[in-house]
């Protein structure tokens, strides 16, 4: 069964675009990354899934049920991009309120999470830093062990050590069968943890694939020392030159590249897989060219 499934999902705010015909499928058990710059439509999509706003057209389903219905949320844990709670309440009270709203006793799980995230439950919400408010949000989203976790920019505001712990928790949950759906604009994060990813830009879905496939394209990242510019063959793009080293992306036959390099006075060679970020930028540039 699919944890999340949207078809032609469209949202307009008055006349301004939110998202346009998004078709997204996230299988149960997936660790899914939703990537895009700010304002691309990530939060709009997520807010429709959570039933906070209704779509202009198209459909969205969670575990086969239409979003917007209350019982859909029973299986979902949600972490909004901004963690806001009721003033005057203590961390412990907020976490308990969240569990009570779900009619569940999650005391044990909540305690475990608070310990791992080093969250002091006796503090008042108003005393917390952004990072610590995020932690409260994480506990509220995970304490009932949901089948699907929808996390909107979960790591912003968390320090690197906490980010690592947070992802460790998510990976455990994922190993236990939970589906993780998270949005981010930090590609390295997605590349490191997600199995599949979708890229959204200006309200449209650009692509959706295994993170592995996105990274393992034909393109290789090449760095050469000793020559000022790359050889003149097809398939070379994104050339950068910083003094001694020339870097570029190459997508083509390896033999052709090696033949072209053989006669050149090269002192050092480095051939690596490009990271998601470079592919992403590459894709964006292409998209811009298509548009212009």
């Amino acid at each position: 069964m699919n944890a999340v499934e949207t078809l032609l999902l469209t949202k307009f705010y008055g006349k301004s675009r939110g998202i346009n015909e998004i078709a997204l499928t996230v299988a149960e058990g997936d660790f899914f990354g939703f990537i895009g710059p700010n304002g691309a439509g990530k939060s709009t999509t997520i807010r429709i899934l959570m039933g906070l706003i209704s779509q202009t057209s198209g459909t969205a389903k969670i575990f086969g049920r239409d979003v917007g219905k209350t019982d859909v949320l029973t299986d979902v844990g949600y972490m909004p991009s901004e963690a806001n709670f009721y003033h005057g309440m203590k961390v412990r009270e907020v976490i308990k309120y969240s569990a009570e709203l779900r009619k569940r006793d999650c005391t044990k799980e909540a305690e475990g999470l608070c310990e791992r995230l080093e969250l002091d439950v006796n503090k008042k919400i108003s005393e917390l830093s952004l990072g610590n408010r995020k932690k409260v949000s994480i506990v509220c989203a995970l304490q009932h062990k949901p089948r699907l976790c929808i996390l909107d920019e979960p790591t912003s505001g968390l320090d690197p050590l906490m980010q690592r712990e947070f992802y460790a928790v998510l990976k455990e949950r994922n190993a236990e069968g939970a589906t993780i759906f998270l949005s981010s604009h930090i590609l390295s994060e997605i590349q490191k943890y997600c199995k599949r990813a979708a890229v959204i830009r200006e309200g449209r879905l650009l692509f959706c694939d295994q993170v592995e496939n996105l990274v393992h394209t034909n393109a290789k990242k090449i760095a050469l020392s000793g020559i000022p510019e790359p050889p003149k063959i097809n398939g070379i793009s994104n050339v950068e030159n910083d003094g001694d080293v020339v870097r570029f992306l190459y997508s083509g036959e390896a033999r052709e590249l090696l033949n072209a390099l053989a006669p050149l006075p090269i002192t050092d060679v480095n051939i690596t897989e490009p990271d998601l970020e470079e592919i992403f930028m590459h894709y964006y540039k292409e998209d811009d060219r298509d548009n212009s």
Partner: protein
Amino acid sequence: MTILKHEIRQGRNSLIIWTAVIAFMLGVCILIYPEISKQMDGLSEAFANMGGFSAAFGMDKLNFGEFLGFFGVECGNVLGLGGAFFAALAGIAALSKEERGHTAEFLLTHPVSRQNVVAQKLVSVIVQIIILNAVAVGITALTTIMIGESPDIKPLTLTFAAYLMMQIEIAAICFGISAFIGSGGLGLGLWLAAAFYFLNIIANLTDSAEFLKYITPFGYTDSSSIIADGRIEIKYLVVGIVMTVIGIGAAFWKYGRKDIS
């Protein structure tokens, strides 16, 4: 019940302050009555003959020298206006505060239907209003006994019932507005309560503006008719009940389909 409990806990401080201030003023006013009534013999007539001023506060029909007459005017201003302000604030904040504080994203992403949220918040507002009025009744009873008055219970009961209904109506109207607005609104609530109060004064002043009593819930709380005639003006009350139902209905209708920003 979870949200109801949470709401009452969240509103506790505000309720305590409003109740304490209203109860204190009510109590003080009643306690000074014996003092006033002593000096009232000649004054009562003067109060009733101040033309527009007397009419505005219903003093032309009430005998200020009698306890019930005094109570009707004084109570009208303390419990009526104070309670109306509290009801307006509680009603208008009930739904809109979740969006203003960005806590709607927290609350509404739990498996609780919007209708359920609206219902529990509405009950919490009404419960708070009932608590405030119960304390007001208690203080009135206590201080009345203390000064040795034993007024007729029926007009007193009707007066409190009318005030309770008036506060619930104002809360319901503000509650309906609360579902439409995303944030703010506190000023609007206070303004609305004050406007209703002044509409009633205008209606008291001139006969040509008497239709305003249909609009303002203060129309049926007018102690002059409750205490002088021994009944609540049904035609105004019916309009008030209709307004209450519309306010509550609008809240359920709008909040159920609203995009939360």
